[in-house]
């Protein structure tokens, strides 16, 4: 092997990488917060909501979970303008991620809701709480606690999946890596660095979500 490694380009291109990281983080933050919110709302609708709403949400969930993320993204960015719905690449990327995480999050959160003992609903009702109040104050937090590890994994998957948005020229980390590679022809070094950054981001995100879990769900016992 007589390939000479050269990471000298990092000196010139680090601002591009930093901007890419910032975009990836922004997409993950918006996608994570809004996506989980949408997932919770859909989980409520599918598990406890009015009868007419359940098939609507089920159709959305199945549509998203059975099609590729890239196609969803292309449909939003390239397809919707035909109907007069135009948006920039970042908005399209954000929207696609929210819709995608919303569907997967829905199924995960729903599992948590359905594992709630019947007595919790009855206790809420017997104290005069409405069904919505019981869901919000009694059922939701323990349900999220039950599925938090699974939900965290899904958020990390969505963060990594955001690499696809480079295909609509949203300037995320993958876009930055492609850009640098096309200028320097240092494919190995560029994607090696991108890999390390994604790895670090994913580990940091996992730790962050674990920490968030500790604050959201104060530990109950020293078991």
């Amino acid at each position, binding site marked *: 092997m007589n390939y000479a490694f050269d990471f000298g380009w990092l000196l010139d291109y680090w601002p591009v990488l930093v901007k890419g990281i910032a975009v990836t983080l922004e997409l993950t933050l918006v996608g994570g917060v809004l996506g989980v919110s949408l997932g919770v709302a859909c989980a409520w609708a599918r598990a406890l909501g009015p009868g007419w709403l359940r098939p609507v949400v089920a159709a959305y969930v199945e549509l998203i979970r059975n099609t590729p993320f890239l196609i969803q993204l292309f449909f939003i960015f390239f397809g919707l303008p035909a109907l007069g719905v135009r948006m920039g690449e970042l908005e399209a990327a954000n929207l696609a991620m929210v819709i995608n995480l919303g569907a997967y999050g829905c199924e995960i959160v729903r599992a948590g809701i359905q594992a709630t003992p019947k007595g919790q609903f009855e206790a809420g009702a017997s*104290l005069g*709480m409405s069904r919505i109040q019981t869901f919000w104050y009694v059922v939701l937090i323990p349900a999220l606690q039950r599925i938090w590890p699974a939900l965290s994994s899904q958020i990390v998957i969505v963060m990594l999946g955001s690499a696809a948005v480079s295909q609509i020229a949203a300037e995320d980390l993958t876009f930055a890596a492609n850009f640098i590679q096309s200028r320097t022809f240092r494919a190995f070094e560029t994607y090696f660095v991108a890999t390390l950054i994604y790895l670090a981001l994913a580990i940091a995100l996992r730790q962050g979500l674990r920490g968030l879990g500790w604050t959201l769900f104060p530990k109950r016992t020293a078991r």
Partner: protein
Amino acid sequence: MSLIEITEVKKRFGNNEVLKGINIDVAPGEVIAVIGKSGSGKSTLLRCINGLETIDEGSISVAGAQLLPDELHLKALRLKVGMIFQGFNLFPHLTAGRNVMLSQMVVKKTPKAEAEAMARRQLERVGLAHKFDAYPDQLSGGQQQRVAIARALAMQPIALLCDEITSALDPELVSEVLAVVKELAGEGMTLMMVTHEMRFARDVCSRVVFMHQGRVHEIGPPEEVFASPKTPELQQFLGVTH
């Protein structure tokens, strides 16, 4: 005037009629024990009274609040009658104090400070003032059930329904819960309890309802019901449990 009026109540689960025309009137301050074999409909009756089950025929009202299936009427009814369950059903993510505060704040919109003061009073009443900040799974079964009683009391109901509230407890914990109930009875709270604690029913209750196959089979003051049961079913039931 009766506080709880149960009139010709019928309830079916599919083809299985579990309540076949129940009539019971409960006066204010009365303590009613509902006894009977499992499957006799006693728990279902209790659950109907605060609308956890719908009824197919007849009517139920508590202090003028009618049992009707819409959320507004159910809420009005449930504000008058609290319920305590066999399995405690405390909210696991909230401390004992928060368990008692939650419904006051959410349902009655009581300000937090007031709800907290009420929670402390009610926990004190059941002997658990020192457990305000403990989570349910740090409490024994008996303590959890007493928190559940405090939680129901904090809503200031006119009557309390107790559905086999000591059945899930270890024998040595039963008495601490019954002591609380006995105190409530002494203070004039209207109570209707499904129970297997015959001695407690005999000592504390003003009337005993014996249910059999979805009907009120015998009803009367405990000294009559326990000392001279009229029907062979009750004689057999008491023979089995004594």
